[in-house]
């Protein structure tokens, strides 16, 4: 089956409907053998030092994986670095299918974008709707995993992160993925609820340093809300595909995202928020708004290259937990 690389969540229903396999390039990069080397290889190819490591990692991932020759390029709703990345990849012979999330969430423009993508892949609304039904069955299981995390305190922050983030492409095999989620659900339901932990929210792009989750849990704090990862599971139930990608918050402005964040802060009874921003990302500027709009303690973390948690970040996390107690 042909593979379509994605750099962020796009309507994967279209890709599955066409019988293609979506591949979230971020996941391939970060779970690879040596993600740090991937970043260095992009720098050797000429990528500037002061550019987001995700962009560099995706570049090297595509160059190395010769079976991914088509990529969906999100031309609005993501960053301008992605634009340049697509241009570089285009020059390397990769086919680029553009997709734009309209800035103002306009439903007509979004429908048009979806239909353009559908015609690139040669699929109809009927087959796309069938693909949605198929994926929604899997998504429901992941929603339950999330509920068990915050409402019943039976799932760790890392599992919550991993399975939600994997819902961007369902690891290419939705039914196999569903079995894995079922296994975890079964284990979680049998586990005793955790008690006495600090309840944290994690907002912003997924961390480039996975060690964050175990580090916090060793210190009695658990992330019970992974904002963007949860968005990848399309958590707002609707039959309408256009509406689904309008409710999906990530590609739209910070104020729309904050509505969702504030709702979840209250519902999940959070003690504090970790706002993660990637080094050199425009979203670092939005931290100003995040801090003004949220009225619970916020720790802003910055991550650059894939590595272990550095001493400074550990110190800042320790103090933050200490302050919340």
């Amino acid at each position, binding site marked *: 089956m042909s593979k379509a690389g994605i750099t962020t969540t796009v309507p994967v229903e279209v890709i599955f409907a066409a019988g293609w396999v979506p591949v979230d390039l971020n996941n391939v990069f970060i779970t690879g053998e040596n993600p740090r080397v991937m970043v260095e290889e992009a720098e050797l190819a000429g990528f500037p030092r002061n550019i987001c490591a995700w962009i560099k990692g995706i570049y090297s991932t595509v160059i190395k994986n010769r079976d991914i020759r088509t990529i969906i390029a999100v031309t609005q709703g993501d960053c301008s670095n992605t634009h340049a990345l697509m241009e570089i990849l285009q020059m390397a012979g990769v086919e680029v299918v553009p997709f734009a999330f309209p800035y103002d969430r306009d439903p007509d423009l979004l429908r048009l974008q979806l239909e353009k993508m559908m015609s690139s892949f040669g699929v109809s609304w009927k087959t796309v709707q069938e693909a949605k039904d198929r994926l929604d069955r899997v998504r429901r299981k992941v929603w339950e995993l999330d509920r068990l995390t915050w409402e019943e305190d039976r799932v760790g922050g890392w599992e919550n992160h991993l399975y939600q983030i994997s819902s961007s492409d369902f690891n290419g095999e939705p039914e196999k993925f569903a079995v894995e989620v079922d296994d975890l659900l079964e284990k979680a339901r049998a586990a005793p609820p955790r008690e006495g932990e600090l309840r944290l929210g994690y907002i912003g792009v997924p961390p480039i340093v996975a060690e964050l989750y175990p580090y916090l849990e060793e210190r009695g704090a658990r992330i019970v809300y992974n904002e963007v990862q949860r968005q990848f599971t399309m958590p707002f139930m609707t039959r309408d595909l256009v509406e689904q990608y309008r409710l999906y918050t990530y590609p739209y402005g910070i104020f729309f995202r904050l509505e969702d964040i504030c709702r979840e802060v209250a519902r999940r009874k959070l003690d504090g928020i970790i706002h993660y921003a990637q*080094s050199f990302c425009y979203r670092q500027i939005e931290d100003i708004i995040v801090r003004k709009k949220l009225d619970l*303690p916020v720790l802003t973390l*910055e991550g*650059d290259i894939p590595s272990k948690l550095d*001493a*400074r970040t*550990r*110190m*800042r996390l*320790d*103090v*933050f937990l*200490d*302050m919340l107690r």
Partner: protein
Amino acid sequence: MFAGIDLGSRSVKIALMEKDRPPRLQKYDTMEFYRAHGKKVSGKFMLDVAGTGLPGAGAGITATGYGRHSVKVRGARVIPEIKAHMLGAIHLTSLADFTLLDLGGQDSKVALVRGGRMVDFMTNDKCAASTGRYLENMAAALNISLVELSRHYRSPVELASTCAIFGESELIGKVVEGYSIPALAAGVNHSIFKRILPMLNRLISKTIVFTGGVAYSEALRLIIAEKTGAQVVVPENPEYAGAIGCCVEAMR
């Protein structure tokens, strides 16, 4: 007897305290201290503090500082730096409501303290261009002592580089342009202030307690007081605030 040890990036500070007595303080160069008192024990770097004047084989030691995750101090309890500095600052000044500004070897930290508790904090993250190491480099570039550097705050030369290393070459460029040493030194001091101002602004109080080795700089004390309008309190032995805070935590 309580012992506090602050494993800083430039120096290791040790405080020995008993209730109602002034603390005994000692300072070592970090590298020399690690060489003299450290060894690898089953793959981990351990500090054995016997022979440094600290009591026993580590009983009653509380440790903090940059090295606290990578270096194990035998028998010591570990607390985060900001907490240690805050407790030290409260102990040294008897204040309960203030903004703590701690400028160390490679850290800059700002914490908002209300009723003797930390309610918010910020630190430098991926850049050390507002710390003691920067001052050391700049003093070396100007071929003057840190004491001399810390005298000047009037008529500063504008230094624009955000990076400590580029700042050094920029400074050398200004030397060639013929600026006086006092103006250049004042420029260095003002540039540190500009880098910490965004953090200070967000967590400002009427009183700023200024700790860490950089608090010995009179120029910075004056610049901070003048530009923020806050009262700047520098406790005696400001660089020992972390080590003293460790003792305070142990005594609680």
